């Protein structure tokens, strides 16, 4: 079953009332992708569907002799994870974000939670990256505040997570975007660990990040090609705007 949009979400699973949807796609430091992968493994989530479109790159992932869509959806009841190892072409970001939002709204997803990085020039000097939160609704902001998550008060968001947040605002679908201080250009498992610890607090989870940190070097080696492609996309989206001096905002 799918939608009549250029992007279809395929999968006949039932979304549990109150379920949260976590989104981990390539962006700063691959923070979301690394975090999503660790969450899927830790919660033993099952693959329940995929996102399909004529506009996404012509790639099929083969795992255990089974072809899979590169943009997959996992489900565990209380949580849904959407993740991918491909870089979305810039021209598809809006339609993908709109489709995810529309699907979540129709299925009754409680909140979409975007997991990403915040490019931090002095990341090398930071032992434990801080995590900031942006909420699309007063309720989402209150949730962040109650969990003691630092608010992202001023600045710009650029890219897929920004579009997803904007589409959620338009559709009145609650959205929380979590941003961990991260290397802009290198895979950053440390930042992913910080974001998972924040999720533990926010959603009352107990996901251990020890294994993730133990495997940090291995992840950095294996994620290099994806990081390289992500670097090119971030450059084309002018991600650097996030670090520019603020303009006048009234």
């Amino acid at each position, binding site marked *: 079953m799918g939608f009549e949009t250029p992007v279809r979400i395929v999968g006949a699973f039932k979304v549990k009332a109150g379920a949260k949807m976590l989104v981990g796609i390539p962006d700063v430091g691959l923070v979301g992708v690394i975090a999503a992968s660790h969450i899927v493994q830790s919660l033993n989530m099952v693959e329940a569907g995929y996102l399909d479109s004529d506009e996404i790159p012509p790639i099929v992932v083969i795992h255990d002799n089974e072809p899979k869509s590169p943009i997959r959806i996992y489900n565990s009841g209380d949580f849904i994870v959407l993740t991918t190892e491909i870089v979305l072409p810039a021209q598809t970001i809006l339609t993908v974000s709109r489709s995810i939002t529309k699907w979540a709204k129709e299925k009754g997803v409680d909140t979409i939670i975007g997991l990403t990085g915040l490019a931090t020039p002095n990341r*090398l000097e930071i032992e434990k990256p801080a995590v900031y939160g942006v909420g699309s609704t007063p309720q989402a902001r209150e949730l962040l505040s109650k969990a003691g998550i630092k608010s992202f008060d001023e600045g710009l968001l650029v890219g897929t997570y920004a579009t997803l947040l904007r589409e959620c605002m338009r559709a009145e679908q609650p959205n929380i975007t979590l941003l961990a201080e991260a*290397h802009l*250009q290198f895979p950053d498992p440390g930042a992913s660990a910080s974001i998972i610890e924040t999720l533990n607090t926010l959603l009352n989870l107990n996901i251990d990040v020890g294994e993730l940190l133990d495997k*940090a*070097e291995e992840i950095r*080696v294996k994620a*290099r090609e994806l990081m390289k492609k992500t670097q090119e996309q971030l450059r084309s989206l002018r991600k650097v705007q996030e670090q520019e001096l603020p303009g006048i905002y009234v």
Partner: protein
Amino acid sequence: MSQRKRKSIFEIFEEFIGHVDKVFEELVGVVPFETPLCDVSKRELKPLVHMYETEDEVIVTIDLPYVRKEDIRLSASENTLKIEAPVRERIRMSRWGPYQKEVEFECFRRTITLPAIIDPEKTRAKFKDGILRVILPKKIYGYRIIVE
């Protein structure tokens, strides 16, 4: 005063390819011939690199997981930076497509073409958490002009 070392034909060719890539990147925003970040036959990985310049310096950061500080070999000429770093244990990648069942890598190697002429003797570097940061001061040419 340091002696300038004669470049090998391979170094000259590598520099030339670097220049061609840079020109294409500036013109159309992409590198013309995308190559993977590894050379399976040589068991080498190409490290991820981030480079930017200020008025006075070129700053290069290089991602080097599995590398020890004492094993890094770094050299600079006026317009290139060369990095070689063996990994402390072989990096094994398994199940890599139908042909490459398993492959091992032994070192990182990359020659980077710099965007400005730098002073190699004043270059400094720091290694922390598997990331190498190299600061290359630019060579200053010209005279100060007094403004009246």
